[in-house]
């Protein structure tokens, strides 16, 4: 990263705090960054957009950096109040939602259905704690043939398709036509919502999918095989999680789907440091447990080298951690132009802006959407 880049010290700080692997308690580099005032208005907004506020605060606390941040680092006390409250509320929400995920999983199991927790719900209490990983929802993957039964089961549990209305505190239902359009165009069922009765996290939001890719994308993956190969999570929760290789594929494909999405680009939410941290932290923990040759064989059998490499490539662009090297070398797809592509169905466009500028852009929502999906659906409907 070049020193003359806007907010270069702030970028450095955010990246260094959006990770789990730095175990240097003194952290001399961070202390040096905090010797002069930083732009915390930019830092807090950026960390929030990248879903790493909890992680950032957790790292500042465990490294004993809050005092220098408040002193020479220029952290305003008002931000300290808000961020520490976001941290506490995030922890509370995660506890509530993780317990709820376990309940749903148990109900499904009683109904003879296997649902497998992925992303945050799989990673908390494994590589993360409930304190330091933001949860936006609970994601499950299931067999497509069982989606009808899952919908029934979720409705029996009091959930409905819809979106949470912050103005009224209620769940707004979705129109039947929207539900059908969603099913037609997505690899997940519409969002399930239920009011929780808790002030900090007033609703539960659950997504259940059957593939890592949407139907109009060039790739797909055998979700049934992932469900069959899932294993009990090693935390006593009763949740099922994907086999290690499937989790790595999922993390890669997730970064790819959001990175190339014109739908996400309209809202400037293609990139989240939290996703890159998931990948790096997962590989740092499980690198030696995974069989690289078997992984590559699976990637090739599914014909998903491009999305897998994409996730690894951009994680490396952020962290430059040596653990990524052998995975990158083994999955290199040859052709690289697609790394700068955004897509909307079969429409494609290329972007020339450097990755770190896109990563840290705080551009607002586009006034005129480019993606077809956004012209049909409001943001709260997906």
């Amino acid at each position, binding site marked *: 990263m070049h020193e003359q880049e806007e907010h270069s010290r702030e970028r450095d700080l955010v990246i260094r705090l959006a990770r789990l692997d730095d175990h240097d308690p003194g952290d001399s580099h961070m202390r040096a960054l905090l010797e002069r005032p930083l732009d915390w208005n930019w830092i807090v907004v950026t960390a929030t957009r990248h879903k790493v506020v909890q992680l950032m605060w957790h790292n500042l606390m465990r490294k004993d950096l809050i005092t220098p941040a408040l002193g020479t680092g220029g952290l305003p006390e008002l931000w300290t109040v808000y961020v520490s409250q976001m941290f506490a509320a995030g922890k509370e929400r995660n506890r509530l939602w993780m317990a709820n995920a376990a309940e749903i999983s148990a109900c499904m199991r009683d109904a003879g259905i296997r649902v497998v927790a992925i992303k945050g719900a799989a990673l908390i209490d494994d590589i993360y704690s409930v304190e330091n990983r933001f949860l936006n929802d609970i994601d499950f993957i299931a067999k*497509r*043939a069982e*989606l*009808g039964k899952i919908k029934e089961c979720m409705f029996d549990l009091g959930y409905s398709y819809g979106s949470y209305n912050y103005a009224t505190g209620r769940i707004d239902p979705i129109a039947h*036509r929207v539900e*059908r*359009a969603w*099913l*037609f*165009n997505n690899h997940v069922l519409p969002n399930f919502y239920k009011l929780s009765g808790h002030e900090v996290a007033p609703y539960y939001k659950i997504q259940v999918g059957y593939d890592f890719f*949407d*139907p*109009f994308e060039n790739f*797909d993956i055998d979700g049934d095989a992932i469900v069959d190969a899932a294993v009990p999570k090693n935390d006593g929760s009763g949740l099922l999680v994907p086999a290690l290789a499937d989790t790595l594929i999922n993390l890669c494909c997730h970064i790819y789907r959001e990175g190339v999405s014109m739908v996400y680009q309209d809202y400037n939410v293609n990139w989240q440091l939290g996703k890159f941290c998931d990948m790096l932290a997962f590989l740092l923990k499980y690198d030696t447990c995974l069989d690289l040759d078997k992984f590559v064989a699976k990637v090739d059998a599914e014909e998903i080298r491009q999305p897998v490499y994409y996730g690894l490539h951009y994680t490396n662009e952020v962290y430059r951690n040596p653990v990524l090297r052998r995975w990158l070398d083994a999955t290199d797809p040859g052709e690289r132009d697609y790394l700068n592509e955004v897509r909307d*169905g*079969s*429409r494609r466009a290329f972007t020339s802006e450097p990755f770190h500028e896109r990563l840290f852009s705080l551009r607002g929502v586009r006034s005129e959407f480019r993606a*077809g*999906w956004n012209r*049909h659906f409001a943001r709260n409907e997906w």
Partner: protein
Amino acid sequence: MREKPKPRAQCDVRDDVLSYLADYVSVPTLTKARGDVVLKDCGLDSFGTFEFVLGLEERLGLTISDEFLDARRCRSVNGIVDLLVESYARGRDR
């Protein structure tokens, strides 16, 4: 190798789909198409395809059940025909 002749019902469905597509995109010659027809080549994007499938339901007087609503299966006329035939068959079995 010659393809096995398809059951008459499937041919009827294909004629219905082609006829509706010809009207939908205003290309009358599509009714005489012999091979498969890719909907993207007719100017239909993913949402255009969804609208087309909804219109087709109305034209044929049927409702495709949720489990068959899948853009991946609706990229071409033959894909939609297979989906409709399977949907009909599943409806009969229930």
